[in-house]
């Protein structure tokens, strides 16, 4: 077994096991393992097999089209792309948002956080968490949850529905709306719409609290497993408000190393490329971002709920803040560093989203009519938002004719690429190495991936000179020929003929 498990030293004659596709995640990916005759693990990789191309075909389109077009990256978190692109376009049109525009967008965003987190926890992950990682595969799905835990299933469905209703009212549609436009929004929230949402919000807050309780209980009942499953140390990245509070809509970048030392804080994201860069590897369509100060090998980091909840100074809503403190203190802080701590942190964020929605619904600015602003036109725009799965960066350059000439997207799942690979390699070491493989054991790999709530559709948006590698193997799995295309587009052929 190699130390990193990224690339086997001698892949010849190793047995290849594939989990294809990885199920109960958004998008399409697969995991491959290379094992020897003694079932020892030599290589573990999460491959992303989708190919999208948004960064390329957005070129030439008018800038005001971007917030609507790029949200088609995803059917689960389109609001995140819609808003990140809108924030970038706010810079392009030189806008400072009116209070109504900012609050309607925030309401839309917290509706998105609520529905996406509910979808992930209840629909996708609860079968693993409530039945067990290696439980009967026939029941380990949402239908099984409905049969065994009907109240929890109903709660999950209705939480998600409420979030979708918030999105419908602010964006015009539950999925792929048009509410946010460069410089503002195209509608406010009427009193009738506000009252429609207000009638259910207390129930939503209550259910969200109970959901945090479910996550906590899972840790309490399986302390050793939950604390140590796929555990690894990672640097973190997220945005925080100027006072250090959690703010999922806007803030400055905060990065800390795996020992908690601050690498940069309140960093203006409009120059993100000075602190974050992207690496490519020949075996994945997904890029590998890293913190520049730490280099390509060591600079990978983790984003998302676990990073946000553990790295913010406080959560500015009382119920979620109390739950954050309990999470951070649990078992001497061990849950806060656990891969499965993602679930607990995610539920704390869902509670925060519900509280934020309640607060925003009572704000009269939602009924304002000053919806759009503009200022001095700019050439470049960067929009960053904390999407349900983590930090989301949209970067555009627009020419004098209003056409987009360059686009770079670094999505949440891309940030977590190396971290997910680390998690599954750790699980492979803990649960698979040297053991006879079973479906239940392989599901442990998927459980680690699902903890990140990856959106593989979003993460494969690039097109162009992506590195590719084609291998010709003989009957025993030994490599005969390999054709590679590097990131600069050049081809190379390596022959291993005797």
């Amino acid at each position, binding site marked *: 077994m190699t130390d990193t498990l990224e690339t086997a030293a001698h892949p010849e004659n190793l047995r290849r096991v594939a989990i294809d596709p990885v199920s109960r995640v958004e998008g399409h990916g697969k995991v491959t393992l290379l094992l020897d005759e003694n079932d020892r693990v030599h290589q573990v990789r999460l491959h992303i097999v989708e190919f999208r191309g948004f960064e390329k075909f957005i070129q030439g389109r008018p800038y005001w*089209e971007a917030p609507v077009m790029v949200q088609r990256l995803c059917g689960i978190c389109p609001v995140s792309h819609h808003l990140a692109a809108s924030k970038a376009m706010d810079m392009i049109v030189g806008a400072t948002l009116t209070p109504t525009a900012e609050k309607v967008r925030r309401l839309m965003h917290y509706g998105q956080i609520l529905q996406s987190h509910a979808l992930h926890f209840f629909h996708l992950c609860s079968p693993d968490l409530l039945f067990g990682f290696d439980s009967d595969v026939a029941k380990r799905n949402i239908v099984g949850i409905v049969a065994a835990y009907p109240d929890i299933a109903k709660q999950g469905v209705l939480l998600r529905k409420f979030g979708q209703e918030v999105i419908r009212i602010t964006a015009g549609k539950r999925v792929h*709306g048009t*509410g946010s436009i460069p410089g503002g929004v195209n509608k406010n929230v009427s009193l009738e719409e506000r009252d429609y949402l207000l009638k259910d919000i207390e129930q939503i807050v209550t259910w969200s609290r109970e959901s945090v309780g479910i996550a906590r209980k899972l840790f309490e009942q399986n302390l050793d497993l939950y604390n140590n499953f796929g555990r690894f140390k990672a640097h973190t990245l997220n945005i925080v408000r100027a006072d250090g509070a959690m703010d999922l809509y806007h803030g400055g970048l905060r990065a800390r190393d795996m020992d908690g030392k601050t690498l940069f804080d309140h960093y203006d994201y409009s120059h993100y490329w000075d602190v974050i860069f992207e690496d490519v590897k020949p075996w994945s369509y997904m890029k590998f971002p890293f913190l520049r100060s730490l280099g390509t090998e060591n600079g990978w980091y983790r984003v998302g709920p676990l990073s946000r909840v553990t790295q913010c100074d406080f959560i500015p809503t009382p119920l979620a803040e109390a739950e954050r403190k309990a999470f951070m203190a649990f078992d001497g802080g061990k849950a806060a560093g656990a891969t499965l701590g993602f679930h607990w942190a995610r539920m704390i964020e869902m509670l925060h989203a519900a509280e934020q929605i309640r607060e925003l619904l009572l704000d009269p600015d939602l009924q304002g009519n000053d919806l759009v602003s503009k200022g001095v036109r700019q050439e470049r725009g960067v929009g960053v938002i904390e999407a349900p799965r983590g930090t989301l960066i949209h970067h555009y350059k627009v020419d004098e004719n*209003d056409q987009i000439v360059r686009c770079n997207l670094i999505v949440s799942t891309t940030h977590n690429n190396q971290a997910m690979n680390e998690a599954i390699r750790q699980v492979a070491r803990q649960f698979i190495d040297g053991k006879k493989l079973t479906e239940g054991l392989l599901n442990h790999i998927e459980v680690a991936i699902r903890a990140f709530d990856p959106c593989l559709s979003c993460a494969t948006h690039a097109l162009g000179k992506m590195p590719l590698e084609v291998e010709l193997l003989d009957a025993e799995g030994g490599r005969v020929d390999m054709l590679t295309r590097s990131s600069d587009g050049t081809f190379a052929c390596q022959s291993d003929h005797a």
Partner: protein
Amino acid sequence: MSDTFQLDGAAVPFEPGQTVMQAALAAGHYIPHLCYHPEFKPHGSCKLCTVKVNGRTTASCTMPAEANLNVESNIEELNALRRTLVQMLFAEGNHFCPSCEKSGNCMLQALGYDLEVHATGFRHLYPDRPLDASHPDVLLDFNRCILCELCVRASSEVDGKNVFALSGRGITKHLIVNAESGKLSDTDFALYDKAMQVCPVGVILPKRVGFSQPIGERRYDKRPISAQALDDAPRQVDTSGNCEACEDPT
């Protein structure tokens, strides 16, 4: 009392000089159409308004109304052909409704919904049609052109500028800008030209407007095109020069 003809079994009155389309719309009977516009001489090119008159097919926008004609329009045979025509239009251009700012206000999209076009039907041609964003106020997205020539007619007959024309033949026929450079910025086209207002799809667009109209308030969000077209009928210019069928570019 005016004369009448029969349209799908109903008596439709008409005035001398009216076409079957004009009389039908005025009487509250919808006949699907794309290139017809009340302010312009009928063109008869899109063929969506094809009806059967005394058993023979003809374009209702060019067919003069006559007493005692037996006109069939809303029959499955013709609606199936209309669906095919709409499918062909979608396949010939690059119509991506999900990210098109004309979505909800687009006649082609609305017709697709109204005629229940549920599948593409034909292999898409994916023509390469770059945008013309050279004009400071107007964007031309040729990807969505359906060759109705309304902009050609409006620019020529109303604006007196001859900014647009169709070039090429058959499947290569396409909309061009009458300038040596081929760019709209090298013409005297203006935001308030009539040609700006008549495009039934998303080719001629005012810049920086985009998606400012919320979902729910767009023309065909409220009512299907079959009802909306009757609301607009007879689609005549009012005393202030405004036409309900045309869009306000602001």
